[in-house]
């Protein structure tokens, strides 16, 4: 898993509440038998509309998604953060998230940032007003700021999740912190019960 430290990225706004995982990645794309490539299916139904945010050239290359409340609700599919990441997003900012999507995001190195409704409103306004609007998300300092620093907002995050993201530690990474113990266990077992190896 890639480390998440500071992200300086173009912001794409999706001004709808309750964006569900069926919209993020419609079920016909789940049948894909590769975990990579889900970006193609990201918001596939909405992308059929030429005016949809992701079809506008001003948002091309965006890495930060701006959303409304209860982002990621619906089916528990882990494909939702995969699709967002495969498309190029690294973070989504919203006033609230659905539980399973929130957990799945952290497991996959994707940062969901919770800001207040008022703060999110402000960001939507800035984003619409200024083409090329970028934000800097600094995980260590737990801040979301405009590139000129004029606008700075603080966000909360569970310390353990922050530690894992900063160090790029997924479940495997966490386990491998015990690599010495695993090796020692293995050596001992092999000496005691060689026929199992």
């Amino acid at each position, binding site marked *: *898993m890639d480390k998440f430290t500071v992200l300086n990225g173009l912001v794409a706004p999706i001004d709808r509440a309750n964006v569900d995982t069926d919209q993020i990645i419609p079920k016909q794309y789940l*049948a894909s*038998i*590769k*975990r*990579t490539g889900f970006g193609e299916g990201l918001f596939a139904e909405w992308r059929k509309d030429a005016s949809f945010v992701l079809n506008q050239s001003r948002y091309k290359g965006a890495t930060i998604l701006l959303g409304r409340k209860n982002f990621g609700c619906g089916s528990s599919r*882990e494909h939702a953060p995969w699709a967002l990441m495969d498309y190029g997003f690294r973070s989504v900012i919203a006033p609230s998230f659905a539980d399973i999507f929130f957990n799945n995001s952290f*497991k996959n190195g994707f940062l969901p940032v919770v800001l207040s409704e008022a703060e999110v409103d402000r960001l939507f306004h800035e984003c619409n007003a200024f083409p090329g609007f970028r934000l800097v998300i600094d995980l260590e300092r737990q801040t979301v700021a405009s590139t000129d620093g004029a606008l700075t907002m603080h966000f909360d995050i569970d310390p353990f999740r922050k530690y894992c993201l900063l160090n790029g530690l997924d*479940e*495997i990474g966490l*386990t*491998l912190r*015990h690599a010495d*113990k*695993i090796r020692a*266990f*293995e050596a001992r*077992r092999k000496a005691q*019960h*060689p*026929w*199992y*190896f």
Partner: protein
Amino acid sequence: MTARTLFEKIWADHVIVVSPQGEELLYVDFNLINEGQSFLAFDQLRMEGRSSRRPQQHLAVTDHYLPTINRDRGTAGMANPEIRRVVEMLDENATEFKLPHIGWGHLDQGIAHVIAPELGIAQPGMLITCNDSHTATNGACGVLAIPIGGGNQLRHVVATQTVWLKKPKTMRFTVDGVRPEAVTAKDVILSIIREIGVGGATGYAIEYAGAAIRAMSMESRLTICNMSIEGGARIGMVGPDDTTYQFLNGRRKAPQGADWDRALTYWKTLPTDADAAFDRELSFDAARFAPMVTWGTSPEDCSPVDGVVPDPSSIGDGDRRRHVERALDYMKLKPATPLQQVAIDRVFIGSCTNSRIEDLRVAAAVVKGRRVARNVKLALVVPGSGLVKEQAEREGLDRIFRDAGFEWREPGCSMCLGMNPDRLSAGERCASTSNRNFEGRQGPGGRTHLVSPAMAAAAAIEGHFVDIRRWT
């Protein structure tokens, strides 16, 4: 030292670290991999640039999707492109991650849980994982065999050779008494599930004990442990004894020479201590068991074959009544219909529950010299592995089945799960030796009746269920 159960001894032997959240990091001695969903794990490992930590402690086995016909034509013989792709991917992934693989063309190919015991991979005292819910089958060999998820958990096992798990509680089923003739292991486990319910053992690791279990062959014990998950338990085990050791001795991957003696000494320390305590205990009398048939859409929905379809209106519990009503509607069965009057369209003898040589011998003895009934459109026998198939052919069982009108297929999961081309059509009724009778399990709209191999064979001959105890 305090008295411990078989499960507790093997679990304790594999703990590396205990997390502050109460999960334990366990060492995985061996991991089996099938093609269902495992591509997700490999895709992510590839993206992360990770490799397999201990490749020789894994075995990839193609069983779930693999068609049971046209094997000689290789993957070109697989008409469905998605099935072909999934089968090819396991092959590619196994090669890329340097994992041993028993693929579609291999002589040993078969169902993972049939192969692991017969090759001597499953040995007492081991911890074995597999991305399949019927992994507990291997517990019959005195193994702590645990199902894992095909995505993140499998990926973790491949990369680290360990798994994080919360320790389950312990439960012992003591089955004493002598099984009546014609009552098989399948009938014993169905009877137990009927009594405890499909969630009856959720959160527990089961140990099957008692005189009736001791008297069983390894094949029968494998059938018993196989269906632990249908009672809700992810783990089911039988303490190793002489039956286990005799079964293992001389098998390809079993220890040899001095290693065998050393292993045996250790294995004999594993059975549950006389005064060890379980969190729950239940006792059963094998003499009371009868051949069973499921009539509903959950494995607990079963009755002795001389019984009738239940009447939901006589069931007091509201949830249970609604379930039975729905099940009978799906199964198109009327209350009070004698089970022996239920006519069938298809017969499936196979699956990780009942596809071993003992199962095929019993079924062959029933059909020998007889013919499949006219109303039965298709009767399939699918051996659990290439070795089972070879043995059966040596004994002439394939001839007996073919002469009776059965199809004799190549090894695999086949009609157990509707993932490969062997499926029921909507409305078809099947006498099946598999483990699950959920709605649509064997194909959308298909109606499954779970039975033993002998009962399935007799149903094929008569075209409806019969009481094998009185049938001649």
